[in-house]
């Protein structure tokens, strides 16, 4: 047996402060009317730091700082000068990427190999990409001289804390807006480290403001009368509430919400790579991925064979310490999320499906859930309809391409889909018919700053990334 010895990434590169204030007007300040909460390491439940909870007054102060910066500095600044700041931020992210990656894994629970090899390279790439647009907006296809909106309120989720920050802040700043960003309450720390990077880059005060806190802080931000734009990534439930809150106002809104993506495997698929794609589709980032391939649709003629390969592959997944460089699956982000995953998985068992997990030892402390598949699932089961947002895969079967399309589209969501076939014509035929913002061909969970990302139906509206991502922050 080839036993890999522990290979932990060093924590010493991260210097955590015991407590963090809010980042408003270019400096860290104490909240005036909010309290504080602790941020813990979900892999050990160890307290990492005390974080300020912004109240209504704090949100107001941040929005005013953003407004001032927009009016006096950032709005009037030529695009080529804004670009310099964004390029500088991108380079600083690269320089400090190890520190950011370790902190991301500590605070979020995701394996270091993902924060190091996926999250951080993409974060830097997004800033580089949008930095390039800042002085070329005249040529982005929105007519001459498109104008920024003003102050953007941005609320991001806990699954990709820094990456979602980059998706929000990079295009907003490139187009000349200023922002107030609220990170998720379980994963505030890398956003605060990003605030330090803004200081290091000499970004003018008030262009980026970070107000930490939970749902109430977010509500205060969304409902603030002086924000021109709201961008939200998170649950469909909260997204609907935000849509109601801004309805009837001039505030522009983009929402990136949940998903229940189909990953469709045909009998002529490259099987070994399809199995990798299935694993990557649902177990990447513990399944805490809005576009996760959580519904596996297998053509019946190869279902048993693919499932056998999938089980063999799942037995190799290494669950444990997120900082170990060989860990494939880290910790569930919070106790609340773990409870939700358990509840839905139990519902799956109760509905009479077959549940399977590879033998795997879970750590005693922290929040953990073994990679799990359910077979014998039908469309009517809750685990085939509701977003689980965890390492849980529902396996369904189909007989014909038409049936695959029908089942794949039979969901209120529509964020992403994957198709596995060696037949090019079939791939294109499906891509035309699948109602999903992204269709991956013989791959899954591939991201790139040049590619727009967004959903159909209850997966939200608006696009982030690429040239399309500029539109959400321009007055066009």
């Amino acid at each position: 047996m080839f036993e890999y010895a522990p290979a932990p990434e060093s924590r010493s590169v991260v210097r955590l402060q015991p407590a963090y204030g809010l980042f408003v007007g270019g400096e860290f300040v104490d909240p005036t009317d909010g309290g504080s909460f602790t941020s813990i390491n979900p892999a050990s439940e160890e307290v990492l730091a005390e974080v300020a909870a912004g109240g209504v007054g704090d949100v107001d102060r941040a929005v005013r700082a953003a407004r001032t910066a927009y009016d006096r500095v950032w709005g009037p600044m030529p695009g080529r000068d804004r670009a310099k700041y964004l390029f500088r931020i991108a380079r600083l992210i690269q320089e400090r990427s190890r520190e950011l990656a370790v902190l991301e894994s500590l605070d979020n629970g995701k394996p270091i190999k993902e924060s190091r090899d996926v999250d951080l390279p993409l974060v830097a790439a997004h800033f580089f990409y949008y930095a390039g647009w800042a002085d070329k907006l005249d040529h982005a296809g929105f007519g001459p001289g498109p104008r920024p909106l003003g102050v953007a309120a941005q609320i991001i989720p806990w699954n990709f804390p820094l990456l979602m920050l980059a998706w929000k802040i990079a295009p907003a700043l490139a187009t000349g807006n200023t922002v107030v960003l609220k990170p998720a309450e379980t994963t505030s720390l890398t956003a605060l480290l990003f605030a330090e990077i803004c200081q290091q880059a000499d970004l003018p005060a008030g262009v980026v403001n970070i107000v930490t806190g939970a749902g109430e802080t977010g509500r205060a931000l969304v409902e603030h009368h002086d924000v021109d734009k709201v961008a939200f990534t998170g649950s469909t439930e909260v997204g609907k509430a935000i849509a109601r809150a801004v309805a009837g106002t001039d505030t522009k809104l983009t929402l990136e919400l949940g998903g229940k993506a189909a990953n469709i495997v045909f009998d002529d698929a490259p099987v070994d790579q399809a199995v990798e794609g299935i694993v990557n589709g649902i177990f990447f980032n513990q399944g805490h991925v809005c576009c996760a391939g959580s519904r596996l649709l297998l053509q019946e003629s190869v279902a048993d064979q693919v499932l056998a390969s999938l089980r063999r592959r799942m037995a190799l997944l290494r669950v444990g310490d997120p900082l170990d460089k060989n860990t494939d699956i880290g910790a569930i982000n919070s106790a609340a999320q773990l409870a939700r995953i358990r509840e839905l998985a139990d519902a799956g068992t109760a509905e009479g499906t077959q549940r399977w997990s590879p033998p795997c030892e879970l750590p005693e402390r922290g929040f953990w859930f073994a990679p799990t598949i359910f077979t014998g699932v039908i469309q009517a089961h809750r685990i085939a309809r509701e977003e689980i947002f965890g390492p849980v895969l529902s396996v369904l079967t189909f007989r014909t391409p038409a049936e695959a399309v029908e089942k794949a589209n039979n969901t209120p969501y529509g964020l992403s889909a994957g198709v596995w076939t060696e037949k090019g014509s079939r791939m294109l035929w499906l891509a035309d018919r699948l109602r999903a913002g992204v269709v991956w061909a013989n791959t899954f969970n591939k991201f790139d700053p040049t590619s727009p990302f967004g959903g159909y139906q209850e997966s939200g509206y608006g696009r982030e990334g690429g040239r399309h991502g500029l539109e959400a922050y321009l007055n066009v």
Partner: protein
Amino acid sequence: MTATAMSARSDLTELGRSETALRAFLHGLPGVDQVGAEQRAAQLGTRSIKATAKAWAIDLAIRMVDLTTLEGADTPGKVRALAAKALRPDPADPSCPHVGAVCVYPSMVPYVAEVLRGPAGGAGPAGAAAAPAGAGVVHLASVATAFPSGQAPLEVKLADTRAAVAAGADEIDMVINRSAFLTGQYQEVYDEIVAVREASGPAHLKVILETGELSTYDNVRRASWLAMLAGADFIKTSTGKVPAAATPPVTLVMLEAVRDFRAATGRQVGVKPAGGIKTTKDAIRYLVLVNETVGADWLDPDWFRFGASSLLNDLLMQRTKLTTGDYAGPDHFTRD
């Protein structure tokens, strides 16, 4: 196991009797997605193997080395030195294991045999007293069949093979007929392997696919199955004589093939990447690939080998580093 393989399980042995059946089978194997295969190999390349795991892997890798010299300039003196090194790679450390095999041209086999097995009629290898006890033998591999191009009449290839076995080789590394393979004449490739298999007698047969000349992963998978169906004991990536030698994704595809072949037939076949594997880091990446593709059954010199020459010294340097904590300079290791 592949669907095709499953349905064909009962008549896999019949395949070699018909060009049509052979073609239908090989072209019915599932495709390999190039991007996905390369991504998987790259991901496994990021595994971090440290401390005890590294020490274990280095010793295993040493035992898997087919210490190779395949030069026109090879002389009896050169290959004798190599054979001596194969028996005792690190004269300063008796706990260091011997390598898996020595691999030379047929004309050099007798000189290697002298060192490994002792003079004809003698009792045991010359280095027996020094070799670690109970560690098995160092095999004697010879390339044959008009290596590396394979562009010779079949009779010449068979004579080449018989001569190598007669001189003492217990492993034969043959090359497939790429000309026939690339023109789709699978039957011819198959029949040649069967004939060489027969000419090899008791020797183990390693079949070199020369993956750099096959160019696509689909071809690598087909050639792997073709070789296994024809009776290969091992499938080997490369001769080391064309620029594109062993790569992790090519080896991954071949490992998947031996895994599926065993599931279909019950027979286990070994894998040997060769060429371009120079460092301990490279070797450990391959061992990770083996571990996470086919598992522990293949983590043994009987089932996985490295065709390499300079790799051994790097393994020895890293081994010394782990034991003593210091890097010794390259001059502290023998160059043969």
